[in-house]
């Protein structure tokens, strides 16, 4: 059985947007680039043709990859929970101040927006935590978070 990719609704939308862009825009741009490259002459010695074919290979590879991910995606809707899970918004105390993270998939993570991936060290450590828990992200340099609220 194919591995399910956990996503939030926003994450799914992001991947769908990427898929649409690749299949409706990028694919045609790359085909046009290959057509133009042929104009440079004999394709056996044609560097621009090789470049363009490389790009086509990446585009088509990514399209296939996205098809698989979208087929096997499981959207985790946000819900109230006692325990930190995908889609939770967690308010923590760190270094004596309040910080807030939304727990999301890697595709949509952006700590500058407050979105942390479940596969990042902080995200991994927060998953499954309850209010009042103090979690430590381990390595030589330790970061400690106390869970204050789970929205």
């Amino acid at each position, binding site marked *: 059985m194919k591995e399910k990719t956990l996503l939030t609704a926003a994450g799914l939308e992001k991947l769908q947007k990427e898929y649409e862009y690749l299949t409706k825009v990028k694919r045609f741009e790359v085909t046009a680039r290959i057509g133009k490259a042929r104009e440079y002459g004999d394709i056996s010695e044609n*560097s621009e043709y090789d470049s363009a074919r490389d790009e086509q290979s*990446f585009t088509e590879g990514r399209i296939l990859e996205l098809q698989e991910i979208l087929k096997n995606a499981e959207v985790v809707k946000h819900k109230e929970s006692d325990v930190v899970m995908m889609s939770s918004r967690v308010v923590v105390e760190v270094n004596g101040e309040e910080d807030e*993270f939304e727990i999301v998939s890697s595709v949509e993570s952006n*700590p500058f927006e407050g979105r942390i991936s479940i596969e990042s060290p902080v995200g991994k450590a927060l998953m499954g935590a309850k209010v009042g828990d103090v979690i430590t992200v381990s390595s030589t340099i330790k970061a400690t978070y106390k869970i204050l609220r789970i929205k």
Partner: protein
Amino acid sequence: MEALIKFLIFTSKLKFTPRKRWVLLGVKDSETVADHMFMTTFLAWIFSEGSGLNSKRLLKIALAHSLDLVFPVSKETYIKVLQKNPASLYDEKQKSLLGKMIHDEEASLHKLLIFSKKFKEEILDLWEDFRFIKSKEAKFLYAVDSIENLVQALVYKKAIAKKDLDAFWLESYHYAKDKQLVQFLDSLKQYDTGGEGAVKNKEDLNLIKFIFLANQLKEIKRKWDMRGVPKEDSESAADHAFRVSIMAWLLSESEKLDVVAVIKMSLIHDLCNVYVGEMTIYDRVLTGDPEKDKISLRILPHYLKEEKERILEERRKLESEAFDKLLDLIPGPFAKEVKELWLDYEYLRTPEGRFVRQVDRIEPLLQALEYKKEGKAEDITVYWYQVKEWIHNKNLLKFVSTLDDYYYKKQSLEYQAN
């Protein structure tokens, strides 16, 4: 992975190695080798639009072409030749003398490549291609490299003798076989002698302005003074972009990523800094009071989610406007490509964008560790806090964990508690 870390640490030396030719010509605080490699790679991309060359090979040759300078050979012969001819336009006797040095340079490169078994063959192939000017891409890069030297010589115009500046013009025209490059040089000549009004081709005029603006990334120091690093020891934005480009290239090879997009994105990710300067997460936090600021700099600024989003939107607006202002100088496919790559990076729209953004968090950590090891930086724990939030790619997580082991267990770097 530890070998790759060592490779990248050694490569970092290029960020702090002034270019010999400028030193010999008497230029104070000259650009570094990394500055030059950044700009050469960037110019190679700009000038190769519509040239029919293999962009992957061209960009990689540009990034690799001076890696032998990590362990420079004792170049008495070279220094004598360079002093007589800083623009590398050598006569037959000089060429013969320098030809013997290529073996020494290659031996230098081998010293570095001990730490890069995976990429040794490829980097050697790229470097030899450039040195012996074998491929179309290498020929083109030779010309671009000369033009890059010329542009920098024009920046240093007041500091160098006219006869030396003339040598850079000669070198550029000698290697520029491409019609487009020759036309650009003609326009640059008109600009240099008669100012903006003298340039007949207005597109070239705008490209000249764009190039001199982008070149300023070599002058913009990164804000390491916040960490106690003396300003003269701080890397430039161009230095940083060079090492992000090399790191992203090498680390992306074990992923299913478009390496051309990865390299290009790495090159331009901070391009807007020529207008907005380096914007950091501490800009709204620092007060100017050294005691208070020292405390603030030990931790990441903490906000609730709405505030984070608001701050991010403000920064994005400024940076997007700066990009547009810069790229409006040179409308066309290149400008469109740069803007789209920046949007991929900033909004994490593509796998390449998400990957390069993560590398861009790790590279400063590596630099911070290097500075700390040299006793130049104080508390650098925030760089670790950042990667713990940002890094989710499996290979990059492994890289960061190897960095932790390398510095704190093997190098016995002391962790200082807050």
